[in-house]
């Protein structure tokens, strides 16, 4: 027995010895390695990141702004969803931004941000992003990092192959994922085939002020239009859309839309259609959609209902639309920086299909067609394919490019990023993702001039990558260094909502244009006041308007009497500050809305309907100054039949 114990003790000691030894050497190795990697993502305190990354929020409906390589979150820009923090969709000024033909829709599913371009290069003026659910396209101004325009897309449903801009931001393009009856009509779902249509919308962008206008819609066969990208350089003037469900199934799509060996990439010569439309082509169709515009002068949005849209039957425009057969329900549809290759990622396949633009033009000229679909010519597969990447992965989704002729493709099923060479189609490197990557983004990777230093992989599954937070865990992005031959994983960082795509740009292009505050003298809000002397309270029936100001560290006025139960009280608050980063906030006890957060020089309004008699305080919600806690006021609420006169004051004056 004793011997046995001795023997076991010896065995355990040896075990400990060995495991300790191993452990130590492992740790030190990893330590050296991580220190090296850590340096590559370390942005010292007070220093700025090299790139902005605009990462979509997916089901959060917003757009988040990150720095690369640090992965630090700077701002969540409210776009399609109400945001109480910034009063987006809560204050009187921004409620019209969320208006649609279905009324006020306070949420959407934001997918694909794309930065405006000039000559095929990112110019950093605006970011466009699509709302997938109630089809909308939003424009974010990169001087204020605020959403300044939202246009609804009629005849569309599941606005997914959006919002990609053409080489000079002539158009932001929005394609429908779900085909629907166009125009909408009460009909049996089973009669989908041939009767449902897919609308591809071309929204023009004013080169000066960026104003969007739905110029025309191409009414395509009833496929699912999944993703799109613009031609560039030699293929400028074309737009490419991946399609699936060319089976035109309306039920159990996971099976019924996966039957055809090949679906299509639709190649649309939008320049031809633009010319056709400019010469009076197309038909005006009655419809109803909202166009919402926010003004930085009035700090107020207006919503206009548009009643008409110009639709184009593609078979009536010669040589405008072709279908390129592409294997296995292609998802991503990405165009190389030189505009030559259109990469279709058959998501049920292992291989990537690279269509050649040059071959496509040749096939069109020599009519190398293989029939048609609803009158749209289908190009012979062999006569358009430029190459196939035998990836060895499974479930390819999206491809981006660097400046050295390499492409990077994400594989959802095999959970990896694969680097391969354009033209030779050879795989150069592959790195795992944790886990199941969806989109990826290289700053400028969707332009003629990729910056090509990092790739961000946006993963769909997180599991154990971070400290657990119950059943729902954060979504995760991963940053890889792609400056060498081999990719190197540098960083995991959590993201807001579910990122579907991102757009990155060199910070130097954008940051110099970022506004510091709004000029008070330029404020044209109808309820603004420019000084404390102008503040007042007016009554019209039971509607009361308070013209209020804020400046460190008080409201003017801050004592108001003569408000009655049943009044509808509008607070119009102007922030008189004219300095960088001095917002003030205001909230009123019992107001059935959010606080408002007012930037210097801005006016914002909220409504309060007092229901109880008494004296009720309001206060500043943003820690504005050393005397922030003193920044408060009172409103006296009297019974409905009271004779208390309307009065207001600050410091008894």
């Amino acid at each position, binding site marked *: 027995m004793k011997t046995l114990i001795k023997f076991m003790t010896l065995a355990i000691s040896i075990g400990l010895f060995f495991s300790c030894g191993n452990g130590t050497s492992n740790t030190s190795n990893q330590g050296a390695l991580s220190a090296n990697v850590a340096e590559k993502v370390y942005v010292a305190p007070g220093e700025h990141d090299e790139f902005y990354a605009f990462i979509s929020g997916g089901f959060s409906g917003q757009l988040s702004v990150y720095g690369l390589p640090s992965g630090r979150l700077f701002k969540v820009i409210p776009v399609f969803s109400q945001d109480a923090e910034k009063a987006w969709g809560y204050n009187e000024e921004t409620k019209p931004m969320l208006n649609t033909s279905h009324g006020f829709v306070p949420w959407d599913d934001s997918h694909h941000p794309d930065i405006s371009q000039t000559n095929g290069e990112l110019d950093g003026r605006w970011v466009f992003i699509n709302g997938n659910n109630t089809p909308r396209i939003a424009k974010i101004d990169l001087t204020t990092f605020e959403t300044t325009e939202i246009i609804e897309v009629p005849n569309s449903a599941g606005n997914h192959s959006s919002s990609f801009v053409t080489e000079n931001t002539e158009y932001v393009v929005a394609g429908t994922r779900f085909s629907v009856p166009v125009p909408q009509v009460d009909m049996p779902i089973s009669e989908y085939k041939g009767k449902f249509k897919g609308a591809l919308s071309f929204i023009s962008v004013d080169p000066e002020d960026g104003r969007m206008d739905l110029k025309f819609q191409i009414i395509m066969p009833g496929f699912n239009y999944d993703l799109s990208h613009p031609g560039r350089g030699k293929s400028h003037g074309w737009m490419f859309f991946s399609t699936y469900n060319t089976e035109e199934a309306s039920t159990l799509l996971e099976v019924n839309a996966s039957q055809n060996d090949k679906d299509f990439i639709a190649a649309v010569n939008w320049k031809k259609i633009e010319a056709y439309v400019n010469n009076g082509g197309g038909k005006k169709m009655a419809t109803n959609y909202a166009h919402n515009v926010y003004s930085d002068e009035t700090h107020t949005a207006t919503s206009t209902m548009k009643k008409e849209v110009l639709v184009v039957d593609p078979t009536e425009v010669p040589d405008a639309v072709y279908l390129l057969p592409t294997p296995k329900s292609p998802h991503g549809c990405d165009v190389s920086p030189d505009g030559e290759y259109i990469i279709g990622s058959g998501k049920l396949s292992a291989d990537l299909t690279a269509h050649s633009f040059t071959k496509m033009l040749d096939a069109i000229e020599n009519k190398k067609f293989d029939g048609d679909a609803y009158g749209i010519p289908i190009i012979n597969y062999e006569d358009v394919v430029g190459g196939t990447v035998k990836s060895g992965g499974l479930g390819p989704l999206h491809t981006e490019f660097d400046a050295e002729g390499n492409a990077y493709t994400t594989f959802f099923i095999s959970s990896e990023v694969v680097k391969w060479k354009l033209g030779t189609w050879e795989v150069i490197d592959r790195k795992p993702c944790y886990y199941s990557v969806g989109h990826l983004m290289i700053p400028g990777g969707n332009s003629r001039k990729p910056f090509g230093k990092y790739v961000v992989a946006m993963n769909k599954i997180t599991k154990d990558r971070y400290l657990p937070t119950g059943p729902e865990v954060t979504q995760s992005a991963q940053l890889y260094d792609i400056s060498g031959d081999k990719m190197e994983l540098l960083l995991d960082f959590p993201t807001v909502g579910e990122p579907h795509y991102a757009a990155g740009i060199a910070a130097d292009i954008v940051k110099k244009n970022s506004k510091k505050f709004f000029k008070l003298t330029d404020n044209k809000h109808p309820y603004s006041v420019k000084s404390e002397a102008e503040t007042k309270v007016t009554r019209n029936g039971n509607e009361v308007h308070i013209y209020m100001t804020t*400046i*460190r560290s008080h409201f003017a006025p801050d004592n108001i009497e003569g408000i009655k139960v049943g009044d509808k009280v509008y607070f119009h608050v102007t922030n008189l*500050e*004219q*300095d*960088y980063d001095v917002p003030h906030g205001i909230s009123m006890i019992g107001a059935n809305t959010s606080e408002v957060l007012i930037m210097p020089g801005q006016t914002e309004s909220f409504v309060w309907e007092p229901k109880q008699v008494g004296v009720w305080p309001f206060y500043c919600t943003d820690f504005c100054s*050393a*005397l922030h806690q003193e920044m408060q006021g009172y409103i006296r609420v009297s019974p409905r039949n009271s004779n208390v006169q309307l009065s207001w004051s600050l410091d008894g004056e």
Partner: protein
Amino acid sequence: MKKSKLLMFLAALLPLGLFLFPLWNITLEAPQYPTPLGMHIYINDFADANPHDIKNINLMNHYVGMKYIPEAIPEFKIFPAGIIITTILGLIIAFKFSHKWYLYWFILMVSLSAAGLYDFYLWEYDYGHNLDPRAIMKFTNPDGTPMGFQPPLFGTKNILNFTAHSYPRLGAYLLALGIATSLVAYIVGKKELKRT
């Protein structure tokens, strides 16, 4: 024309630069102000170094009970008149009078500038010490007397969280150069007299 006379012309004209360039500048640095707050003092105006700086200086200073920097002060009328009169005087001297008068003009300008600086000091003293008795924050010196917030007349000084810099600017240098030139004109004139 004699060299001394030319120099005296130059001396009389140089102070006119005060109408183009600031006389003085006060700059306030603090951690919260990565771009410091600054005020240019012209002979007829207070101006922002960057837009809204004076407004923001006032906003800071009201916490310790300092008065707002006025839109205008009487000096904005007196100083320009003084410069115009002394320039005309200088030109007349250059035209009509001998080099001895150059020295008198020099002495006049030195005295007037000294008076101007003293006046500036008085204004600064009042600005930094004549505080609102209802001031939000009241600070005392170690000896118990109320703390003043007077910016330095010339130089750099720490005032609570701010570092205040107060230095002459191009306008003041042109004035000084003009005054110095009149002295040179006098000396050159004296030498010219000996030679003849």
